[in-house]
């Protein structure tokens, strides 16, 4: 079991972050399907060495529900309510839970890193490893945040966000979505959040367990994004780049062949 491997010391973890020339892809509003496909395209490219390790800040063109890789549509989504409210349904390549996204309501980022970066770390340890700098950044904004295994960024004001990972040909994708502002009534009408999911949380209502960042910081969304990017830059170094035309063409092709197909979205009906 990977749990038996001794943890990699913090100093060694920091050294690993600093050993790469990180590129930033700043937020550009994209269709949800393109966001799904870009994660696949960019992870594969980092694994092949065609692109340096990269952080991407997501932009959203429209409302959507992002299902985890192993979730069933009918168990998670009220499809009629989603359709009535113009909420698109997409499926990502990583596991984890469904997210209801509104363009200005979430802060999402992806980290594309060589798999060697998490050598010696268990899967569980690697989640905390990839989000450590964000927790630090939120704390410097006065948010009482910490990492809650397996994959949550928690705070005394409620859950802030959740992460998920996928691995592809020598690279790790780690992406995290944090709540900035919640449209709770709409979320509850389109997502099915059952009692069993909350059974070990000691609470009875889905909206009480989230502590959106707007409520906790009273800062505009863009300022929070700038702050967390700044934290990364200060700690590990970061230069601004962008998605290449070829990468975008690959993503468009994957939307056609995979992410936009009924076979993928309804992989588990």
């Amino acid at each position, binding site marked *: 079991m990977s749990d038996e491997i001794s943890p990699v010391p913090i100093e060694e973890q920091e050294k690993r972050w600093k050993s790469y020339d990180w590129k930033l892809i700043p937020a550009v509003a994209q269709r949800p399907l393109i966001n799904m496909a870009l994660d696949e395209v960019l992870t594969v490219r980092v694994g092949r060495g065609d692109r340096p390790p990269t952080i991407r800040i997501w932009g959203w063109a429209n409302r959507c529900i992002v299902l985890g890789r192993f979730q069933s549509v009918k168990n998670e989504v009220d499809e009629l309510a989603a359709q009535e409210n113009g909420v698109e349904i997409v499926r990502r390549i990583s596991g*984890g839970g469904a997210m209801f996204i509104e363009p200005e309501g979430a802060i999402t980022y992806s980290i594309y890193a060589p798999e060697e970066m998490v050598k010696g770390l268990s*899967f569980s340890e690697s989640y905390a490893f990839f989000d450590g700098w964000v927790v630090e950044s939120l704390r410097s904004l006065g948010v009482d945040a910490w990492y809650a295994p*397996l994959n949550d960024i928690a705070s005394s004001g409620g859950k802030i966000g959740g992460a998920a990972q996928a691995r592809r040909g020598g690279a790790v994708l780690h992406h995290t979505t944090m709540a900035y502002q919640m449209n709770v009534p709409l979320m509850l009408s389109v997502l099915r959040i059952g009692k069993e999911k909350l059974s070990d949380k000691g609470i009875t209502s889905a909206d009480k367990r989230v502590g959106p960042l707007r409520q906790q910081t009273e800062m505009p969304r863009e300022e929070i994004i700038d702050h967390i990017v700044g934290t990364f830059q200060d700690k590990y170094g970061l230069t601004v780049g962008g998605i290449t035309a070829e990468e975008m063409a690959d993503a468009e092709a994957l939307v056609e062949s995979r992410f936009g197909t009924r076979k993928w979205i309804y992989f*588990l009906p």
Partner: protein
Amino acid sequence: MHGEYKTPGGKLVRVDFDVVDEHLTDVVVSGDFFLYPEEALEAITQSLFGVSSTASESALAGRIGAAIPAGTEWLGSSPEALAIAVRRALTPESEVNA
């Protein structure tokens, strides 16, 4: 039929299936767990096809566990958790609440 189980501190596993002649069919396993590699879901799901609807929790867990390919990492759930979800789906509400 539908059953689910959330591993304390972990993730939710759901199972949907039909029972024909006291055996499970049309099984769908889903949830917000993590699984590497992703293709292992097929083996997990297939392990429940044809299983007797009277199989015990431990027999189910054993069968699911044996079907998982070596090197698979299932985070947040387990064969035992899925076995509980299957038994819950097969147990009438009145017995659960009794």
